């Protein structure tokens, strides 16, 4: 028997009640979302391949034979994003309650810009994702073109969308914010899950910065190429 008394609630409740438990959930869901961002980018970069390459890829994803898998992936992503946002809102409330009287003067310059703006970059990226799905998946913003049923003409839809400077501008803004969110998130999740080491953590931070910037460059290259007339 140990001398330390712990609250006898169910272990799952106790885990999630603790801020550290919520942070662990944010880190794990963050990994899933990061994985999706990478996969999504690799898929999209096919727009720089043969004119019909990306449409073939889209037809493969939309093939009714793969519909089950597609919905499993979509549900997993929705669950991940839901848990990520739920935990972030609960922790945000905790933060606001924890300091009811603000400082007259506060100097936060020692923290990175990215870490100070997680509750801005995250929600704006989420708002963008909703718009993006309505735009290019649902077709609620502009009517989408199809080659055949279940064969969207992704190439034409992307070119039409990004020819609009407002859509491209919002896209680029969201990607830059995603880049800062991932810069802090990608090394932060190791810390949240318990890994920190004086030799590896500084390298992790550099790696996170490089990854975040590469993802931003990759994603932004598409609207920029469309607007510059390089992808027709």
């Amino acid at each position: 028997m140990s001398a330390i008394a712990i609250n006898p609630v169910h272990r799952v409740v106790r885990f999630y009640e603790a801020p550290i438990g919520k942070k662990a959930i944010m880190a794990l869901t963050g990994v899933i979302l990061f994985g999706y961002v990478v996969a999504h980018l690799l898929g999209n970069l096919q727009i720089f391949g043969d004119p019909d390459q990306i449409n073939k890829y889209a037809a493969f994803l939309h093939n009714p034979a793969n519909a089950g898998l597609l919905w499993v992936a979509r549900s997993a992503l929705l669950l991940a994003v839901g848990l990520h946002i739920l935990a972030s809102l609960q922790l945000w409330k905790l933060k606001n309650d924890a300091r009811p009287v603000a400082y007259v003067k506060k100097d936060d310059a020692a923290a990175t810009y990215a870490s100070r703006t997680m509750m801005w970059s995250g929600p704006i990226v989420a708002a963008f994702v909703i718009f993006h799905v309505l735009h290019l998946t649902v077709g609620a913003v502009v009517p989408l073109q199809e080659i055949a049923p279940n064969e969207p003409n992704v190439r034409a839809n992307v070119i039409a969308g990004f020819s609009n400077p407002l859509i491209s501008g919002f896209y680029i803004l969201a990607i830059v914010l995603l880049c800062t969110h991932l810069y802090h998130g990608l090394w932060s999740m190791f810390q949240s899950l318990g890994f920190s080491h004086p030799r590896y953590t500084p390298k992790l931070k550099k790696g996170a910065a490089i990854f975040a910037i590469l993802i931003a460059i990759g994603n932004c290259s598409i609207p920029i190429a469309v607007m510059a007339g390089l992808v027709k």
Partner: protein
Amino acid sequence: MRITLHIWRQRNANDAGKMVRYELPNVNHEMSFLEMLDVLNEDLIAKNEEPVAFDHDCREGICGMCGCMVNGMAHGPLPGTTLCQLHMRHFKDGDELYLEPWRAKAFPVVKDLVVDRTAFDRIIAAGGYISVATGSAPDGNAVMVPKEDAERSMDAAACIGCGACVAMCPNAAAALFTGAKIAHLGLLPQGQPERQQRAIAMVAQAKQELFGSCTNMGLCEAVCPKEIKLEVIARMNGDFIRASLSGR
């Protein structure tokens, strides 16, 4: 040198409080920060005004009693330094300084710059100790400790519980403090028997005291007078997660 102070004045826990401006025309640059406040207080007493209440004890940077925000930085602008070890030579003639108490729900203001930090005591009481057999003293080196672990444990044990980490943290989290205590004990063989329960109990207590949640911003590390590293927070996270997953 001439220093202008804006100090948070609050009569008691129920008073609303406000910033009050004081001019100090003749500050000696060899004074410590607290000596400057002593001089101000002597002035105030001579004028029959209420002196500024601030916590202090050792004035040697070892007890953890002193501390307030100076221009938005806990313990002032000098890294690795308690307020009592900060000297006026680090400021220049004409500086305007804003002094505010640590701000956190868990640290209610008692008076002026003095806050109640007993929430930290309750976190310690929840699990920041080890069980030992009482009786005759044990043999000096009966329990072997790897040198590196001993050093890291000592580094964490340097925490004096001043509360600067909470004060500086935008989330008012007590992660650096709690992490330091958990790492200090958990790095030593003597701390192993209760390691899992300790992590769970101390983390739960910090939540109950209404401290916020760490977002790995690192401002605590930047102002900690004992330069405790963010690594102790990762260690606490790891201990907590492992205890939650593997506990029976």
